[in-house]
């Protein structure tokens, strides 16, 4: 436990008027700092949000703060960025669907795989268990960048050892390409997932498992009936983590999803729009908001679990 430096004790002061003023003052300063930080953290988003509803000419010619002098709102930007027929307009609706199709299995598979693995690592016994766990934990920090080129060639060329084809190339086309994005996201998510879920699972009381075992329950039953209900918050935490990660990911999507409206998610499209038509603010503002709205809803409604997972993952680890 922390020891208080002796200096604190020695500087004991009588509660003078000056001391009180100082205290009041520092309370003021504290509030001021809080307000300034809160403003800095919300104003940029608010500006973008407001702009996304302003007519194109207004956005491009005047600052969003002039809106209050000349309020004019429109939904045209959203209509254009989602469904516009010109090739430059975004067609974000299609990419929105891709994001959904990519995200759902990319959250479900790691959840299941990590749960099974975490269960094995906490409640079955085998030699070298701790080393396997530490190995998985260590993989958390292998940068994604290390895996990209070889994994891509794994998909496109298969596996060949000394001229013997162990696995043919996947040659996925069209919407089947989603499979390789799911695959990549699942692999990359496992170290963190196993770690987070193991953290919760290994702390369940051992008597609980023992009692179930004595009653003749199999591992399947124990996992389903005893463990799952108890670790549900951890699963929720990791699920949200993974959801936000996949939904917001750009790097994995750029490399494994192609980059066309057929399979690429919204982040890829937005990055393209920001690059080539960097000044079409009416599309960028509304497009950015379309991409944010779902994660924001999920995040706000499940913030409690997210925070819990974050604290478990970081403070414990």
């Amino acid at each position, binding site marked *: 436990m922390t020891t*208080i430096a002796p*200096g*604190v004790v020695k*500087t004991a*002061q009588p509660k003078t008027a000056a001391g009180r003023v100082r205290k009041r003052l520092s309370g003021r300063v504290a509030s001021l*700092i*809080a307000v300034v930080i*809160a403003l*800095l*953290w*919300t104003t*940029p988003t608010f*500006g973008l949000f407001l*702009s996304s509803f302003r007519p194109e000419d207004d*956005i491009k010619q005047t*600052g969003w703060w002039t809106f209050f002098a000349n309020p004019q709102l429109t939904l045209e930007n959203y209509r254009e960025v989602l469904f*516009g*027929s*010109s090739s430059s307009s975004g067609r974000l609706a*299609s990419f929105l*669907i891709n994001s959904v*199709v990519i995200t759902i*299995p990319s959250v*479900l598979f790691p959840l299941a*795989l990590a749960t099974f*693995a975490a269960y*094995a690592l906490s409640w*079955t*016994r*085998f030699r070298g268990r701790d080393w396997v766990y*530490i190995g998985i934990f260590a*993989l958390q*920090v292998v*940068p994604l*960048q*290390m*895996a*990209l*080129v*070889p*994994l891509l060639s794994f998909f496109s060329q298969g596996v060949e050892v000394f001229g013997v084809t162990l696995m043919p190339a996947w040659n996925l086309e069209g919407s089947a390409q*989603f499979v390789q994005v799911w*695959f990549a996201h699942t692999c990359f998510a496992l170290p963190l997932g196993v770690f987070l879920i193991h953290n919760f699972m290994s702390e369940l009381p051992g008597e609980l498992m023992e009692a179930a075992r004595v009653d003749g329950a199999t*591992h399947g039953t124990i996992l389903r009936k005893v463990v799952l209900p108890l670790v549900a918050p951890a699963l929720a935490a990791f699920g949200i983590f993974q959801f936000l990660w996949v*939904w*917001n*990911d*750009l790097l994995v999507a750029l490399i494994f999803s192609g980059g066309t409206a057929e*399979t690429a998610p919204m*982040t890829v499209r*937005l990055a393209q729009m*920001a690059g080539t038509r960097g000044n079409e*603010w009416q599309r960028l503002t509304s497009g*950015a908001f379309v991409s*944010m709205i779902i*994660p924001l809803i999920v*995040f*706000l409604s499940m913030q409690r679990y997210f*925070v819990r997972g*974050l604290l478990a993952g970081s403070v414990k680890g």
Partner: protein
Amino acid sequence: MDFFFDFAAEAPKLVQLLIGVVAFLAFVGLMLLLLDRAPMKERSWGHSLLLLGPALVLLAIGLVVPGIRTTLLSFMSGDSSQFVGLDNYVWMFTQPEAITVLRNTLIWVLLVPSLVTAIGLVYAVVVDKSRFESVAKSLVFLPMAISFVGAGIIWRFVYAYRPEEADQIGLLNQFVVWLGGEPQQWLQSAPTNTLFLIVVMVWIQAGFATVVLSAAIKGIPAEIVEAARLDGATPIQMFFRVTLPSIRPALVVVLVTQSIGTLKLFDIVRTMTGGQFDTSVIANEMYNQAFRYGEAGKGAALAVFLFVLVTPIVVYQIRSLRQRREA
């Protein structure tokens, strides 16, 4: 303008999603079925293997083998046909454009963790026990839900530039004009443009620090705080002598996670400048070399260097993890 949405083009995607979900259910069902069938024994390799196997196979295919292959590739030429020894590494540390990348990464990794921690800590302290604490924390935490791409767009809008005679549409330049200055192209003049990109990362991550540190502050035993207060410690003394030492472990956690995250940073640079104007960082340069210029060797060398930078942090984490497990 026409309404454009081709439902027929979207149908195969939804079918694919359905296939994915069915595959997921089948996998889980099969696993549970096999687990139920296998007889329970005290020490049974079968169960452990069945439960761990799928995850280990995916980790091997997705991370372990690729990691090894990337390391090998880093000693090969751009098209991976010839062994070139350390050439790619020599390139990385001698060529001006590569050195700029390393310099930028250094600036990022020095500034982001310290700024994020400092701001998160100050904010956590000033809102602690105030009336609006949870709302105030949510406001700063919210950017965590936004993609780096989205945040990049938000901030490009803040930095937007219009010539002096026109009305400004970017908030930052408007402030400069109000204060009597000239509008600037913030993202185009090196080396300050890297700082403007760093602002975006700090903006996203400060909420993480706030939440972790705020929880740590609440965990300080009330007796210690009370004792210090009775002794007449001023808020400032309280902060440096009581709060700061008590939350050291949480501070280290924030610094470590932020350092790792910053080293791997890619999206912000790519969305806001694409690595132009001398703003590229290792992760972005790696992508460009490997996937745009066809220089797989150089890209691999950069990735390996990234790994080397991160390794000491992992070793430290594993050591503290093992200590905790033994304790």
